[in-house]
């Protein structure tokens, strides 16, 4: 059953690396994360041996770059017609959905892994808590996964990759913002605490910040996994609706 998932994932992953776009993307990802950390994050001026400024920007970095990775997943196949080939091969829709998603996730994970010089730097300069850093990396991967699942689902509904990209950024921004003080403060004054807590609990930032502080709470991990599962399920439904038209 998983065999086909890997077959699809391998093909998709190769498709990413078949063009220079993948390498350009990885360079931009690594470069931006460096710029954010060392310039905007005042990494040196803080004189603290941790990667808080590095991970602090990941929700925003992923917000722009994850949709760029996910936008082609289905829209490209729909545009070129190869989705017809894919859907008429003896592969279940969920296998194709999962395979494509895993390929995109692996791709982001590779890009993330290539930020290791930052991690080496902070270990060279001081004695950071590497457990916290590993937890934060896990959180970053999970959050990227959630963005990608949203993006994959939206890509399946689009023929144009540009439309898929823009829509995904907007939707992901909403999820990110749901836990942001900007939104919460607007509710905090008058809304019942339950509502505020619910909105806050839906935000990516709240969960990511918890994990990136080194607190690997099962609920935060579960939250991201549930978001991924929900959107992949929606992705399969979108494909099935396509069969009806």
């Amino acid at each position, binding site marked *: 059953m998983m065999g086909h998932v890997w*077959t699809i994932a391998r093909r998709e992953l190769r*498709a990413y690396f078949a063009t220079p776009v993948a390498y350009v993307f990885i360079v931009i990802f690594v470069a931006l994360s460096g710029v954010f950390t060392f310039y905007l994050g005042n990494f040196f001026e803080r004189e603290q041996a941790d990667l808080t400024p590095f991970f602090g920007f990941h929700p925003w970095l992923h917000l722009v770059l994850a949709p760029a990775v996910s936008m082609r997943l289905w829209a490209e196949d729909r545009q070129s017609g190869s989705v017809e*080939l894919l859907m008429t091969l003896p592969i279940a829709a969920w296998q194709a959905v999962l395979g494509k998603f895993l390929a995109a996730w692996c791709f982001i994970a590779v890009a993330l892994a290539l930020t290791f010089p930052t991690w080496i730097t902070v270990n060279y300069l001081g004695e950071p808590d590497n457990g916290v850093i590993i937890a934060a990396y896990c959180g970053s991967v999970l959050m990227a996964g959630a963005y990608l699942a949203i993006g994959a689902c939206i890509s399946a509904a689009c023929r144009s990759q540009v439309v898929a990209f823009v829509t995904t950024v907007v939707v992901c921004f909403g999820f990110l913002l749901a836990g942001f003080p900007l939104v919460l403060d607007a509710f905090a004054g008058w809304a019942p605490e339950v509502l505020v807590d619910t909105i806050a609990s839906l935000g990516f930032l709240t969960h990511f910040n918890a994990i990136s502080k080194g607190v690997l709470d099962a609920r935060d991990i579960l939250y991201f996994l549930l978001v991924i599962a929900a959107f992949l399920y929606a992705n399969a439904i979108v494909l099935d609706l396509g069969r009806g038209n």
Partner: protein
Amino acid sequence: MIRAESLSKHYGPIRAVDGISFTIEPGEIVGLLGPNGAGKTTTMRMCAGYLAPTSGSVKVHGFDLLTETIAAQKTFGYLPEGAPLWGEMTPRAFLDFIADVRALEGERRAERIGKVVALLQLESVLDQRIETLSKGFRRRVGLAQAILHDPPVLLLDEPTDGLDPNQKHEVRELIRGMSSDKIVVISTHILEEVEAVCSRAIIIAAGRIVADDSPGALAAQSDSRRLDRVFRRITTGEPG
């Protein structure tokens, strides 16, 4: 065996396919004929499980395409209209991928890949990106994909579209050379193709079957014994 029962596909008020029924037995090479927009591709897509019918059903080897999609899809090879492929792959990587999906392993895998590569003369382009290939080569890569697992049923949507006369001839030879216990369904609007390879012609117009007979018997309906006259009379109502 392929059995379609009152197969329909409606898009809002448009009846792309409007209640067609047919049964195709092993050994038949069927040409699905019709003017552009008659519903050929929609019919093929429903047979391949890509589109769900609005009503009616289609079964391949007893498997319903709507409820037993995967089991049905294992029994056939399908060339979609326009032979869409993944342009960034090479034919070698692409056929490898298809062999994985079709669960071809070991000796049989190597044998089948070697066979289709030879049959469709793909050796010279095996390591070129598909997007750089000519239309003729792309079509042949698409055909190679469809016949890779030596399926008992072959569904080919306009298999010779975009090929030059020599390539057309070769593809027709290929279809004719399929073993006699297979089902081949080709959709086309090229009448000479039907006369050249098909044992049966199903003519569709406006989503309905308007004729279903051997090409010879259909041609005999015209005084001039020409299939194109009969086709025009049946699909447009003009005297042939």
